[in-house]
């Protein structure tokens, strides 16, 4: 028997590529949900490894809340140009203009919850039967329960009590018309695995992941980037701070962390010693103990 080097990152990578190719083989109209965050950037690299020199058998879909960090949008556009794949943008602003959703008001207003409607509309419009996402099971306790091929009903709902058995590495993607499957190729990766992979593969990231100085305010005990998307009032004191973002979502719900980490090595050692989880920086998860489960039942990513 020959020996070969196959460490844990190789194993996670091979599993993810296998899953992506199953999506290509099993579905008519798949899509890759691209958020501009490190996890979906990792998915793009994995898709390159799965399908090059061919084209991706799916477009990238970005659900644009209109409240993105500009750095994310710049990164997205540059990346699309480099990889030469198709990008579809679903706009939350459009959903608001069409009266399909109503903008939240008040201090903690965010468009995060509104995304679900735009996502479901986009899925319906293009009739996607599978949506690949970058969610990981280590992120959150409801996610820890989800299958790699996760079937959603016509209304996008996840039913955690009726998940299909998922055996060995065999993924059942059979669905009825109107249903669709959310597929999570990096389910078994941890945050640290993603960073180690990004370092190993030399993948470029949006600059906001690295420490930089920016204007922030304190909101509910967390640092938030000062921006026109945040409902600020006289009580909010804006100050400058060296920060970075550990997870990148909407500007109105993603908190920054104080950080000196300007290089990827710094980030990896920072995360290794951190005592706070990545999702600790997401206001959207703090609402209740079952916040993520409830959003998933409603059709969220």
């Amino acid at each position, binding site marked *: 028997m020959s020996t070969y080097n196959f460490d844990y990152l190789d194993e996670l990578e091979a599993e993810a590529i296998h899953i992506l*190719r199953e999506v290509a083989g099993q579905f008519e109209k798949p899509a890759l949900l691209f958020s501009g965050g490190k996890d979906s950037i990792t998915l793009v690299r994995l898709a390159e*490894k799965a399908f090059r020199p061919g084209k991706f058998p799916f477009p990238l879909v970005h659900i644009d809340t209109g409240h993105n960090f500009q750095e994310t949008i710049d990164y997205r556009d540059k990346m699309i140009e480099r990889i030469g794949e198709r990008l579809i943008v679903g706009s939350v602003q459009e959903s608001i203009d069409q009266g399909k959703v109503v903008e939240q008001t008040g201090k903690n207003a965010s468009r995060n919850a509104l995304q679900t409607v735009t996502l479901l509309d986009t899925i319906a419009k293009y009739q996607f039967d599978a949506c690949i996402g970058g969610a990981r099971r280590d992120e959150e306790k409801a996610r820890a*329960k989800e299958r790699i091929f996760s079937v959603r009903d016509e209304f996008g709902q996840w039913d955690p*009590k009726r998940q299909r058995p998922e055996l*060995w590495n*065999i993924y059942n993607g059979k669905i009825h018309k109107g249903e669709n499957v959310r597929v999570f190729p990096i389910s078994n990766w941890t945050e640290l695995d993603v960073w180690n992979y990004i370092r190993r593969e030399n993948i470029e990231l949006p600059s906001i992941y690295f420490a930089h100085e920016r204007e922030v305010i304190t909101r509910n005990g967390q640092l938030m980037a000062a921006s026109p998307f945040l409902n600020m009032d006289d009580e909010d004191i804006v100050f400058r701070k060296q920060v970075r973002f550990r997870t990148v979502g909407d500007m109105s719900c993603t908190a920054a962390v104080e950080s000196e980490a300007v290089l990827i090595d710094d980030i990896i050692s920072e995360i290794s010693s951190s005592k706070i989880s990545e999702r600790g920086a997401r206001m959207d998860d703090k609402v209740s103990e079952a916040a993520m489960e409830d959003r998933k039942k409603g059709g969220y990513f």
Partner: protein
Amino acid sequence: MNILKFFTAGSVDDGKSTLIGRLLYDTDSILADQLEALQSSNRKNDDGTIDLAILTDGLRAEREQGITIDVAYKYFQTDKRKFIIADTPGHIQYTRNMVTGASTANLAIILIDARNGVVEQTIRHSYLVSLLGIKHIVVCINKMDMVDYSEAVYQSIIDKYKVLAQQLKLKDVNYIPVSALKGDNIVQNSDRMEWYDGESLLHFLEKVDTDNLDKSQLARMPVQWVIRPQTDELHDYRGYAGRVLSGTFNLNDKVTILPSGASSTIERIEFFDQAPDAAHAGQSVTIHLKDDVDISRGDTIVNATALPQESKLIEADLCWMDGRALDTSIMYLIQHNSKVTKCKISEILHKVDINTLEKHAADEFKLNDIGRVIVKTADALAFDLYDDNRANGSAILIDSRTNLTVGALMFRAAVE
């Protein structure tokens, strides 16, 4: 560093979730904000300490009922190894979720409540562990704190289990007395059980020798996708993309393509921007062949000198996983790697009575039933026996009326 995948099994309330919570807690794998959420939760132990089970019981219904309904996956690492844990439910009603968690694992932790000893679910789960061919087993006799850490109690339970292990032909069975609640012998060796001179659970898990991947000599790669760029400069490019299930493919190896039986030679192996000389079990690669053969998704590329079996009639063990009973008169779909074809269960050979482990004739197969059947497939499958090659010896059954996965199949023989 490599990965060990394991899962916990055992009856309801034997302490599976608590044990995992304890492992995470005592290895310092729980982050401050998660701990905070635990501390503020309403579900507490009687003495007011935090209930570690809610770390994995992530669904609202699970927390409300204090039971596990579906598998939860947890991740942690030590200096020695990375671990992927599947916390599976003990309730018989959720056995299919237990099998889901077990199917990808290479080690099983079977918990037994020291007060109750071996019970029906212990037998059921141990039987499933033997069917699924899990190579390593650790039997944790839990709740030792409730039996005064008594060696006699421990000894009488493991004596009973040893009989069961022998009946089931389980190999590599190890025993550890623990208290998941108090942390005895989980990460640190307990000083409340001086009579036990073995290792703590964590130490055992760190050093147990497991090959994550099947490295048998049977080289097999099911084709998942054909890469055909069809651009001017890559006009003739035809790459067969898939994951090597087992064995190794080398450049210039003679291969056979099944089911057509066509033969060819490996011309080139690609992995993104690399062109390695070999592709090994577990790797996702792209293979190019010297000859222009017709290959599509569902076909399998295999080593020409070690062919798998090919048959339309296969004897297999079946775990039934659907509320609607098996119907031998209708057609199901069978999915074997990337291949899907129609099938029927043409015969039920026997069902296994979980309490006695006896086989008996049956004409009914209901939720959680386990037994031996004959599958008749529309197209022949190219398979290996499950015990020789797990990845190429397993398949799922799909009910095309509901699209649900209704059965797990482990191939035991081709029927002549």
